[in-house]
């Protein structure tokens, strides 16, 4: 299975919400669609799902237009939606039937997922009687009901408490384990980093970075140095011509040009007989890459 998105464009009047978006997903796992607020992520997702007509471009799933296969896609929208005054079971059956499931199949799946997410007692309640977290679980059940090959999760963990967030993470991992394809959009970079293989970062509709996350990180190299000593070494860092990115009581984050610069700093610390508590040279995190890339885009 493969998903090919080519030259996707969407304009609203004079405003270009998505500008020439292209990417492909060739293997199971999580593909991250990232961007600031208003970057065009939700518009792009709506075009993938065929909800919005595109100005140009193609979205193919195994060579067929994806919009014609939306019943095989599980979707968790950013803005959660349930009928507030209708019994949860009734609306789940309705959504399942719209996806082409029989009532018996749907009931069996609903039972499974309600038990898996510990919400069995809420099945016959009105949606408005459920907590936000439980409403979100019901929404996740809707996305998973048909056991879809492709899941699109727009901000799946936003607004969840740590316990429910862990439960969602566990389900996402299970789906990855089953060989599912997942397109995930989120502002929580640590969550995305935890799951994602490939990504696209959008800013004002334009693609500012795309590719495999590990390769992107390798491309940056190990240029982030976290260091903590018993004495203040700020002067030593500045004298070495290095940039301090962030300084907290726990550590000082320094940007180095290469590993050689980091080694030079380490040598100076040892020569000055300063007690070293922490020394970690690593690739930049997704959060750091995101902030840097979006920052560059704003500056340009």
């Amino acid at each position, binding site marked *: 299975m493969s998903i090919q998105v080519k030259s996707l464009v969407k304009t609203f009047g004079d405003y270009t919400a998505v500008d020439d978006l292209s990417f492909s997903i060739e293997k199971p796992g999580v593909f991250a669609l990232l961007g600031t607020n208003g970057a065009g992520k939700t518009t792009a997702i709506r075009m993938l799902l065929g909800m919005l007509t595109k100005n140009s471009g193609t979205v193919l799933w195994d060579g067929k237009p994806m919009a014609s296969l939306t019943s095989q896609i599980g979707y968790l929208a950013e803005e959660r939606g*349930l009928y507030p005054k209708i019994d949860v079971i*009734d609306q789940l059956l309705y959504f399942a039937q*719209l996806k082409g499931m029989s009532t018996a199949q749907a009931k069996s799946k609903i039972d499974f997922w309600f038990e898996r997410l510990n919400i069995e007692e809420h099945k016959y309640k009105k949606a408005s009687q459920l907590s936000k977290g439980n409403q979100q679980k019901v929404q996740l059940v809707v996305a998973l009901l048909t056991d879809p090959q492709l899941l699109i999760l727009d901000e799946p963990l936003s607004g969840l408490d740590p316990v429910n967030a862990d439960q969602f993470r566990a389900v996402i991992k299970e789906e990855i384990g089953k060989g599912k394809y997942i397109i995930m959009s989120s502002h929580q970079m640590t969550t995305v980093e935890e799951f994602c293989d490939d990504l696209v970062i959008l800013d004002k509709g334009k693609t500012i970075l795309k590719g495999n996350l590990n390769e992107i990180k390798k491309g940056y190299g190990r240029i982030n140095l976290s260091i903590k000593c018993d004495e203040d070494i700020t002067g030593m860092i500045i004298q070495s011509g290095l940039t301090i990115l962030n300084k907290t009581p726990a550590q000082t984050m320094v940007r180095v040009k290469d590993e050689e610069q980091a080694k030079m700093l380490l040598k100076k610390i040892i020569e000055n007989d300063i007690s070293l508590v922490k020394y970690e040279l690593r690739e930049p995190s997704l959060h750091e890459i995101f902030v840097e890339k979006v920052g560059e885009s704003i500056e340009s």
Partner: protein
Amino acid sequence: MKYLLKRSVSQLNLNGTGKVFKFTITQQLKSRTFRITTIVILVISILIAASLNIIPALISKDDGEKAPTLGDIDVKEVYVLDESGLNIDIVSALSAEMPKANIVKLEQDEESIIDELVETTESKILLKLTKDESGYSILSIKPPNITVDKDDLTLYYTKSIIESGRLLNAGVSEADVEMLLANISAESIEAGEEVKSLAEILTEIYVPMASGIILFLLIYLYGYWVATSIVAEKSSRVMELLLTSVKPLAVVLGKLIAMGTLALTQFALLLASAGISYKISGGFANSMAGENYNPLDLSTLTDAFTPLNIIVVLIIFILGYILYAEMNAIAGATISSAEDMQMAVMPVNFIAIVGFYLSYFSPAVDNDVLNTIVALCPISSPFALPTMIIMDKISIGMALASILILIATIVIVLLFAARVYSSIVLHTGNRLRLKDLFSIYRQK
């Protein structure tokens, strides 16, 4: 037009319409608002239909009830003091009519009788006839402490005895006296105006008006519910979830057909309950008023309910509903919160109210030009046409033209909706105005 049709039809993927239809019907039947509205409409139709029998029965009963006569009243003694000088035998006439009473002719000394009446607890009356400069007068004097002859029958009967007695004394025959004293009813009308019976007034004016109101309420109410349902799905963000499985037009069409089916069912229930109520109340009215029952002649109306007319009326009802529901669906999709609902549907409400008033007043005005406009204009024809057909106030050609105009309008609105709906149904934020819709229409 051909290009527009091609572009719009290409967007008509209607898979899932049936499921939306089924879900909408089920949920609407469960809603309290729908149940209450149905009960209220049925009760009103039952009462109106029953009143067509009960009111004439009550009138007939009142007319047929035997008026009390002198023989029925409980008077022990009637004293007659005749100082009129007329040669009329009042005592004999009263005696003939009041066999249980003792009629006593006084010659003089009424004071002692008056004193007796002041003190007595028995039912006695003194009738005093006098002559003065202006003519004759009759005075009825009764005891102060008890009720005797509360309707003054003795007084009025004595007056009629004198009136007829004077004519008889003047040499008029008894037959002529009866003719001369017969009741005369009086009424004032304008030149050219016809005096109409209650049944004619009902069938020609009030039934069309009532039909207009009922059709307006059903068409308006169900169209409004389509808009409400769409707004509810937009504001609760369910719409985005639905659109992963079905196209926007399938959602709106499913709702539209579901609400239309319910409207039609409610309309049929209304007609059936009115018919049954009319039938049952007819028997009840008959037993209530007995042989005096004079039912309204509604044959003009009932004869018009031929199978063909009923089918045509139902078609017009469906078309009217579709037109207004389409407009309401577009209005509902232009907003994303229930608070904006009134503002969004205001233009549709305005159109509906203009159409309703045109249809409401045209039967009363009965002007040919106005009737033609009302029949052909698609905003008023759904409310007016059914009654015009039932009352045989429209030619077949005109009715056909009206239906064709209505269908053409529906198609135009549908083509417009098909082009803009998929864009506006996911719109959030400020309410979209008509110019925004046209802008989206042109862009697409």
